[in-house]
């Protein structure tokens, strides 16, 4: 019990790092993903090919390898990153591949007929995008983006491997002095669970509150 109390505050502090890692990676991922998705949907043939190769390749390589390439590999080319920065780059770029897939799917999910109807009213292509395609694509993206958020959150634990003091590494430090791995790792698991479960619940409540008939939440898939 004593150990539980003394550990919880330390673990919660490093949870801050975990959340920072997550938010920074998702943000980087979103910025890159917007360009990739727009390139895939509206770009010319070459842009489409480059964007697609980037997306497929990034999705096919384990996050641990991406992290190691950035953290251990780049220094041999003279570029050195802090562990935290390397983790954000790795998680963010990997997430951009998944997010671009989400955005592309959402853009294409807006029916062709509605786009024709918007044109028939005399809208320009830009008006069609901002008044019809984009507002709907955003809504289609919410559920899969929430899912992506929890995936990145869980994968921040892999930053443990390059020495970022996030939740799991902090837990390991405590284990190495207390020899209570079962308790400490279970506490870590519980903290992750509360955040992912809480995020999912929060979003689905928010979604219900602001829902539009015809945009019900879809099943959540693993990336």
């Amino acid at each position: 019990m004593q150990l539980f109390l003394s550990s919880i505050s330390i673990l919660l502090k490093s949870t801050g790092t975990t959340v920072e890692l997550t938010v920074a990676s998702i943000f980087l991922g979103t910025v890159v993903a917007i360009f990739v998705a727009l390139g895939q949907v509206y770009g010319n043939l070459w842009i489409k090919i480059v964007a697609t190769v980037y997306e497929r390749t990034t999705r096919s390589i384990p996050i641990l390898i991406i992290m190691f390439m950035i953290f251990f590999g780049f220094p041999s080319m003279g570029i050195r990153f802090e562990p935290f920065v390397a983790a954000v780059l790795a998680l963010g770029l990997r997430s951009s591949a998944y997010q671009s897939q989400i955005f592309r799917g959402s853009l294409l999910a807006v029916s062709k007929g509605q786009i024709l109807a918007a044109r028939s009213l005399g809208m320009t292509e830009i008006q069609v995008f901002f008044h019809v395609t984009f507002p709907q694509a955003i809504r289609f993206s919410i559920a899969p983006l929430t899912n992506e958020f929890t995936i990145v959150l869980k994968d921040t634990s892999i930053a443990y491997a390059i020495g970022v003091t996030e939740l799991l590494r902090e837990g390991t430090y405590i284990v190495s002095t207390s020899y209570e791995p079962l308790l400490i790792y279970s506490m870590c698991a519980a903290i992750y669970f509360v955040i992912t479960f809480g995020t999912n619940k929060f979003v689905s409540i928010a979604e219900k509150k602001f829902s539009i008939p015809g945009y019900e939440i879809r099943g959540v898939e693993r990336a």
Partner: protein
Amino acid sequence: MNHFIFIFIQALPFLLKGLEFTLELAFISIIVGFGIGMFTAIERVYGGKLAYGFSTAYVEIIRGTPLLVQLFIIYFSLPQIGIHFSPLVASVISFSLNSGAYQAEYIRGAMQSVEKGQMKAAISMGMTKWQAIRLVIMPQALRKVLPSWTNEFVYLVKYTSLAYLVGVPELMAQGEFVASRNFEFMDVFLGVALIYLMVILTITWAFSFVEKRIKIPGV
């Protein structure tokens, strides 16, 4: 470029040895995970209150926590209560339990997407509930689940790399081993990435081939 090829060829025997472990881990885990997933999905759809409660808790807890933490609990924490596993066995157990929860969700989703009328029709013919599940619902559901299954397998191949962190000599670990000897981190890791890429492209292609072969019009 020549330099990379040289390093890559030198590392290749080690990497291929590691790849064997990687594929072994992924194969065993997806198959055991499938068994767990089937069982859990059926409990969640047709089970009683208790079965539903347990299976739901299992799925939610696994999906709500990182795979690496699950692996650490099984490999580092269970010895505390007298349960010891080798790195390889601990990894297989973690990955199977993890994959089982996700596969349960895919199978459940697919079962529920088979229309209710099918169950009614089967029972009206005199089939038992179990016969209906086995002969009518599952053959349709499993076809629908195949694309998710491809994803799941690809996911497992990638995430078996975490077994490196508990000391399984799989592909990632072999890469790290070679790189820390010759200090060619970038080239070796690029080589490792390339192997993962080839393997995953092959799997994706193979599954889409199977998918086409067993497709039934309208299902």
